[in-house]
């Protein structure tokens, strides 16, 4: 496994693209929480200011590696200190931790080598190297994805969940009294969904690390997350997980995709230049 972690260099475009998606997710989740109008005091004001400056710089990709490391520290402060130590419950959720760990893993890779102001400045200065880098961060993202699926499946592997009772309780909490209740709370459907979720999560935990299962992993993974996102208030969790699927694709294919996307269209041979 160690060899797999350190082996390989590849295109930095998946990481660059993920960085941009991550910042949009961070804004979606935290912008209102840390905006000036919501600041309870100078500490919260400073936290908000730091958050917006760092995320702004990370989005455009200026001083990207340093900024992402600082942003990871800010996210750790928000989750561990404000959330767990000071008891600000909304910042202790799974989706917040996932955003923190994604920021940290991003900072461990060459996240500013593609789709960034850093790249543009080096191209303009004539010092730009190829958009290639170590794939260590990509591998860590893959491990994180597999770990989430594995441990959440382990948590559901019990009679309470597999009998449908636990999912029934969750769905009752959100749909009791709704006009959709007769369909969504239909017992055979709930039991089937509970069993299917556990099977799919175990499958994804293994399939993520096997390239030949990739099409099925994408299909079942996206189906799972889109269903959760539509059915339940999961905040940014589903979208973050789906964004992480970028690291399951071969980096060179992502690179080639953008090459083709932005390539100038072929002009007819007889067209005047």
């Amino acid at each position: 496994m160690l060899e797999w972690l350190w082996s390989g260099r590849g295109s930095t475009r998946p990481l660059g693209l993920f960085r941009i998606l991550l910042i949009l997710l961070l804004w979606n989740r935290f912008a209102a929480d840390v905006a000036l109008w919501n600041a309870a005091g100078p500490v919260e004001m400073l936290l908000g200011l730091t958050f917006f400056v760092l995320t702004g710089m990370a989005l455009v990709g200026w001083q990207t590696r340093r900024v992402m490391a600082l942003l990871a520290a800010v996210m750790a402060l928000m989750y561990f200190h404000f959330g767990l130590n000071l008891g600000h419950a909304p910042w202790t959720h799974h989706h917040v931790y996932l955003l923190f760990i994604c920021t940290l893993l991003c900072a461990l890779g060459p996240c500013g080598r593609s789709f960034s102001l850093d790249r543009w400045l080096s191209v303009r200065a004539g010092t730009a190297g190829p958009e290639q880098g170590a794939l260590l961060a990509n591998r860590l993202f893959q491990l994180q994805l597999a770990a989430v699926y594995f441990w959440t499946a382990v948590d559901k592997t019990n009679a309470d969940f597999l009998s449908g009772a636990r999912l029934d309780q969750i769905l009752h909490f959100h749909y009791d009294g709704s006009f959709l209740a007769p369909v969504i709370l239909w017992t055979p459907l709930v039991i089937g969904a509970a069993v299917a979720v556990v099977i799919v999560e175990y499958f994804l935990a293994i399939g993520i690390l096997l390239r030949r299962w990739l099409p099925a992993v994408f299909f079942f993974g996206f189906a799972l997350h889109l269903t959760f996102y539509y059915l339940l208030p999961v905040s940014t969790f589903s979208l973050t997980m789906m964004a992480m699927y970028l690291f399951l694709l071969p980096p060179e294919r992502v690179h080639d995709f953008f090459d083709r996307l932005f390539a100038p269209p072929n002009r007819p041979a007889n067209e005047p230049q």
Partner: protein
Amino acid sequence: MPSSVQGKKLFAPRIGVLNILQRTGIIILAVFILFGPGLVQVLDVDASQIRSWRMYSGVGIGAPYGTFDVLNSGEPVRSVSVVAAMEIDSIRGIQAYTGSGSLRRGFDADVAIRDAGELLCATLAPDESIRFSGRLAARGGWRPLTYSHDDLCGAL
């Protein structure tokens, strides 16, 4: 000897140590990502700093569902749901009802049903009585909830 070569020799061992430290840190992080949740989920280590992946494990736990039946001479004449009796829009509104914003802290279904029952009791005609039947979302499954007229209106 040129100064640059001297510099290389001077710094080469330090770069090696940094590299080893960096790799050790990454290995620890990878092991933590893979097996950290197991400390909480399998070995029951009580550490809030270690993230488990128990999504939605507590959502809805503690929420009561059911109806109050209003009886006239022992025959049901109307029923009132928990949600209507508590004057909330949906069962999720119970979270606001607790004052803590969470079912996990400061909410007791037994107290909430008795409170709602007492409000309903105060509106009954002299020959009317009430009873409650429903269930509670509990860890390990659903738990039946039943309260008689005396349970709910005994204090009045």
